């Protein structure tokens, strides 16, 4: 039975309207509601379902970031993960942590923990990179099925349906493999109160990138973060005829 590593990220909650800092160094994160990256919830859910179907022996949830990332790990444990690994990175360093660093950390942990499968979300909704799964696969030399909407388990291989631009695609990957979860993969469960209480007793190991021998020096320098251009206010039209004449004026018809 497989051992599964799931990468999860603590991000600003998807419903929050973000604010750019006045010094243009980034966005305001202090005092803002955070939660687990929605795609990572789907990744955890998939791993836990594997365990429920006796396809997985153990589900390990890993998060890289400041102390507060432990809350995200607890959420994963409450959803059904067995143990957590918190790769502690100070708030300041975490701001400049990139998928290249996370992928090296996940790759090292996958080897140390002897896992057969790594599942991560297809992208984090803060940096919108969509890189970590692909890079982890690259570091390990494992096949990577990105944007998964269906995973079927075979003997030492997985048949995966992927969401691509024109529709869907099916690939077979040999395990060990890396997968990235798309929205359509599953519907993540809510953590129930008893499970939240139980999750408090589950083990969470704390380590540093240094312990893993991974250099987290930023490879990309953020020069500025600014507000996007604001659209000119539009107008509410009284009827369809006015809309048609406006579209004609604009050369759209």
């Amino acid at each position, binding site marked *: 039975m497989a051992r599964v590593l799931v990468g999860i990220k603590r991000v600003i909650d998807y419903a929050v309207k973000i604010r750019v800092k006045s010094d243009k160094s980034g966005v305001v994160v202090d005092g803002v509601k955070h939660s687990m990256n929605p795609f990572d919830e789907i990744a955890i859910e998939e791993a836990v379902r594997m365990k429920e179907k006796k396809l997985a022996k153990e589900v390990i949830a890993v998060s890289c970031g400041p102390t507060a990332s432990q809350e995200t790990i607890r959420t994963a444990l409450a959803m059904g993960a067995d143990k957590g690994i918190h790769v502690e990175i100070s708030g300041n360093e975490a701001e400049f942590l990139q998928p290249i660093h996370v992928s090296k950390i996940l790759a090292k942990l996958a080897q140390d923990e002897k896992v057969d499968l790594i599942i991560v979300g297809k992208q984090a909704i803060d940096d919108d990179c969509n890189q970590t799964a692909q890079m982890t696969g*690259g570091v390990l030399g494992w096949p990577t099925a990105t944007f998964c909407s269906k995973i079927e388990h075979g003997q030492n291989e997985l048949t995966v349906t992927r969401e691509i631009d024109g529709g869907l695609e099916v690939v077979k990957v040999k395990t060990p493999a890396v997968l990235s979860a798309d929205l359509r993969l599953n519907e993540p469960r809510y953590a129930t109160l008893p499970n939240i209480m139980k999750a408090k007793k589950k083990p969470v190991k704390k380590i540093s990138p240094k312990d893993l021998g991974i250099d987290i020096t930023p490879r990309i320098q953020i020069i500025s973060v*600014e507000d996007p251009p604001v659209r000119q206010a539009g107008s509410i039209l009284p009827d369809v005829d006015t809309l048609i004449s406006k579209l004609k004026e604009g050369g759209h018809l």
Partner: protein
Amino acid sequence: MFATYCRTLKTNVNFVSILQRLESTLVIAEHNNEAVSPITQNALTAAKKIGGDITVLVAGTKCGPVSEKISKAKDVARVLVAESDAFKGFTPESLAPLIIATQKQHNFSHIVAGASAFGKALLPRVAASLDISPASDIIGITSADTFVRTIYAGNAIQTLKIKDAIKIISIRGTSFEPAALEGGSAKIEQAPAGDYKSTLIEFVSQELAKSDRPELTSAKAIVSGGRGLKSADNFKLLYDLADKLNAAVGASRAAVDAGYVANDLQIGQTGKIVAPNLYIAVGISGAIQHLAGMKDSKTIVAINKDPDAPIFQVADYGLVQDLFKAVPELTGKL
């Protein structure tokens, strides 16, 4: 005086061309073994902005027509062709080693592809193998190492500098004009040979949605529907309107989740990013995640019966009406 000016100008021109000569970009062509994907043309424009030599890599099971076509693009210096069964399904596991072999031979300063499902799946794997930190979905190029992209679902614009020697970037198609595939005559050469077949992954099949309408990401007009459409059948109202406008049809996540349309029509942060001349949002409230995919459209029209729907904050023209009345009326009058 004039002579001095000319000399200065000449020196500057030389200086610029020396700088540009240092840059050399590899563009990874996206295609389906028959035709070039339009996003490749956008990627060529981005490569021109970087400056310097442009090489295009065409890999697939059949590359003849595509490499011929790309060799006619102006400013492309050469087209490298890798035709093999190994590239069936364009799997990153087979393409990444080819790109790395090509990089080793030619030493490019930049590797560029479109930020489509293909480019997104491929480039980070290449980057990891080369120990490079890539930049995704670039919307602007400030200089050879400085790029602009959006974060937080398009709600912030980040300017970044890549410190690695090789810059690996995927570009947002809608942010760069498509380069014409004419006016040039690039050399067609063989890409470095090797055994690129991967035993780790096997392409099984593809199920592509068939449609006579324009392709979503390059359409000039898009009619898009949300939860307000209430059923898959009601989407016909939008198809009728789209046919009148020669528009593509898109959808919000709510409409896809409810099963009204297939997920390849989803527009938004995690779906497709579009920027047509005309975007008509019908029965779409305008969540942050949807706006991320369409707010760079030139003209936005919203039809929604809820006057407080956030979509009206970005719409140029709003119609606060029941879509089941407004859409047929609009279609009828066009």
